[in-house]
């Protein structure tokens, strides 16, 4: 491979966004029929680099060579012409069309008349071989909305094949697939590689990377962080490559014995899994981690307890008192709060000020006769914002202009001033940079120390292992097992997450 010209060479790529150096002098090389895994933490620059290759962004500096030829990629169509296809994390399929319509979107075969009508029969006929090649046992005229997510993704790959892609970029392709579907995808990728397609594979799932990758390239803070050859790929070395140091395990204070049960959940059923029941307890001062694959029903449990999606059945007990939660107002009145997964959509109102966001659930405290006392409101927001160290010049600042970490702090400031009894975190640090992450973790530990019961849903394995006093693992709508701090490991959690036996409550 070293002798022949690489299919793709990216050299000295730099890119700046509004005052931030997203990429600095980054290089990447991919040989023919090679699977290169691109790894790094959120914000390390993986997606930016691939978006430059895919024609979504233009680099400020650097050169791209494809098959040794310097190539300028000014847009997505240039990239396609150069043989680069991009399978995005969020699928780009139109579910009102059939599979063939998606494969040939924008270059449909025409009947040749002046009306430029689409020759549907020919389109289906031509699309079928690509679908078959992926072992996708579906007809080309199947409407997309009848396919599973994994099948839709395959249709996207079929589209890439029909475009004669020689370089395929896959950005977190397995993030919403089940285990069996992931296996299938891995086979497809291996098959493509055998046919000489080069693949850049972005994934946070290090197990997959280990199985698939011929080589690993690490990015850190927008710079090359080094690489690993096939033989060198181990979990530890990959983590080190991403983080730049060995992760030390957080030394938890031994959980204090004899803490009373704060929140008890029995037989909770959610709309997503109406016939599965979830039961667990959280003690005051405990952080209960909740692990599981995407789609296992964890967020639904959180939303049911918080009342935004009222549960179908089950009982909640708070400090020994039975509790009825029909809406978020009910939960909030009882001191149960949620820091939701999609912050910008449900956690904060980005076009309102920090102050307005923080005081929104507590306006009653700052009002007389329904009218807001603005001085009191200002002081309350100021104090909450300062105690959480939200980085902004004033509380008049729009939340839109804050970083993910600071937005999360605004969400927390909102709840902390109300005196939480139970705080549910759904992916507490998603999209948050390393520094702010540490601050959020400190906050969470501090809250636990004060006796708050914390439920932490997280897909970030390090986070689950480092913070949880106990781990509940969910699989397809039920808890497949609980692990103590000592029992919890990446392996034991994965075992339960994919449905392995455990001491589950059913």
């Amino acid at each position, binding site marked *: 491979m070293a002798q022949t010209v690489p299919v793709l060479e990216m050299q000295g790529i730099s890119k700046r966004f509004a005052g931030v150096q997203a990429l600095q002098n980054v290089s990447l090389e991919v040989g023919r029929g090679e699977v290169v895994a691109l790894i790094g933490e959120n914000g390390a620059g993986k997606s930016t680099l691939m978006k430059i290759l895919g024609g979504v962004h233009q680099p400020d500096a650097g050169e791209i060579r494809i098959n040794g030829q310097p190539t300028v990629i000014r847009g997505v169509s240039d990239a396609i012409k150069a043989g680069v296809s991009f399978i995005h994390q969020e699928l780009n399929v139109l579910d009102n069309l059939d599979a063939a319509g998606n494969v040939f979107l924008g270059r449909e075969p025409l009947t040749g008349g002046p009306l430029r009508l689409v020759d549907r029969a020919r389109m289906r006929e031509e699309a079928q071989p690509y679908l078959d090649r992926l072992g996708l046992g579906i007809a080309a005229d199947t409407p997309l909305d009848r396919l599973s997510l994994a099948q839709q993704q395959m249709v996207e790959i079929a589209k890439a094949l029909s475009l004669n892609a020689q370089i395929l970029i896959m950005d977190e392709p397995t993030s919403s697939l089940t285990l069996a579907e992931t296996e299938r995808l891995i086979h497809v990728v291996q098959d493509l590689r055998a046919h000489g397609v080069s693949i850049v594979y972005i994934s946070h799932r290090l197990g997959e990377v280990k199985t698939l990758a011929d080589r690993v390239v690490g990015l850190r803070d927008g710079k090359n962080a080094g690489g690993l050859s096939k033989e060198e790929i181990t979990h530890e070395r990959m983590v080190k490559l991403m983080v730049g140091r060995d992760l030390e395990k957080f030394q938890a204070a031994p959980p204090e014995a004899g803490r009373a049960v704060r929140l008890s959940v029995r037989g909770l059923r959610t709309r997503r899994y109406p016939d599965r029941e979830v039961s667990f307890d959280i003690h005051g001062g405990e952080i209960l981690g909740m692990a599981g694959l995407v789609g296992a029903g964890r967020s639904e449990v959180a939303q049911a307890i918080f009342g935004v999606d009222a549960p179908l059945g089950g009982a909640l007990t708070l400090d020994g008192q039975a509790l009825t939660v029909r809406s978020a107002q009910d939960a909030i009145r009882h001191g149960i709060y949620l820091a939701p997964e999609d912050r910008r959509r449900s*956690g904060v109102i980005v076009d309102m000020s920090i102050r307005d966001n923080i005081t929104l659930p507590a306006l009653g405290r700052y009002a007389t006769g329904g009218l807001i006392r603005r001085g009191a409101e200002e002081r309350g927001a100021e104090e909450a914002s300062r105690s959480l160290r939200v980085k902004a010049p004033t509380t008049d600042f729009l939340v839109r202009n804050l970083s993910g970490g600071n937005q999360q702090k605004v969400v927390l400031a909102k709840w902390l001033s109300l005196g939480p009894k139970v705080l549910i975190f759904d992916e507490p640090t998603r999209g948050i940079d390393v520094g702010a992450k540490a601050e959020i973790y400190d906050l969470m530990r501090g809250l636990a120390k004060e006796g708050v019961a914390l439920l932490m849903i997280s897909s970030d394995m390090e986070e689950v292992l480092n913070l949880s006093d106990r781990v509940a693992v969910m699989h397809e709508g039920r808890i497949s097992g609980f692990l103590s701090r000592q029992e919890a490991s990446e392996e034991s959690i994965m075992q339960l997450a994919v449905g392995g036996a455990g001491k589950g409550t059913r």
Partner: protein
Amino acid sequence: MINQETSQGEKGQNTPRLPGPETRRLPLGNARKELGIFGLLVVLCLFTGIRNPQFFGVYNLQDLARLVGIYGIFSIGAGIVIITGGIDLSVGSVFALEGVLAAMMLDESHWPALLAVIACLAVTMGLGLFHGLLITRVPLQPFIVTLCGLLFYRGLARFIANDQTKGFGSGEGFEGLMNLATGKLLGVPAPFIVMIVIAVIMWIVLHRSIYGRYLYAVGRNEEAARYSGINSQRVIASAYVVSGALAGITGLLLAFYTNSISPSSHGNSYELYGIAAAVLGGCSLRGGEGSIIGILIGTALLQVLQNLVNLLGIPSSLNFAVVGAVILLGVITDEVIKRRSARKVKA
């Protein structure tokens, strides 16, 4: 995407900017936006006044004030609904229905004035509640619900009135009510005074009360508002009741003012004037933006435009064209200013 987000973020962290103009608090709320449209209003007044000095005549100004009063009241209602991200298209037809009912109660059946007023307001608020419930409980889109209202109430008004024009005659027995629409206090037309009272109340409600904050929150991000413990369905539905109440008050004033309610044309397309006033005054149809002051300036601007067409001898057939063009210009200017200030923030 991801990178742009983090880039913004790090910027916010490392180099905290001073609050931009859009985040600074002014005594009258977010007054920067209103300033531009107020300037336009002043310019139009001066322009008209210079071209035709009659503009500043007492009679003309009184007339103008009366119309601004009548239009202003329901435009505030239109604005409140728009702030929640909705729209109310039914207002004009509600005027027709209410006018017909009022004339039949007072002039034909001789109900006591107070009872008739209460009945009329109950009807319009009831219709508002009906819209609000359809929008939040079914749920249906506000445009569709109130469009059906626009058609239905117009038809109902014509049917009830047998397509006959109704009126109040000399207003015997309810002169006080008539006076609210046609009278003056110290030379100021009564509807203008009514509007000022309502505007002050609504200003406090919208800009100073918990309920007002909820209206904005729900309009900007309904889901996040719900996740903060706001009963967003109730807040949204209530906005249509408020709109119904203000439309009810306007409907009575308008009926007495015209004293001739032809069910097929009374109040026709008034809903659009309300929406236009709100949008000109800074309400965004996406919800979450707008102010009482802005809506009132928008209302005044529309009335001055109509007045300008009359006073400057522009063919009255061009009336709508002039109004449409000015609204478009106003909205374009606003958008350009917004884009420019957004760019300044980014740079």
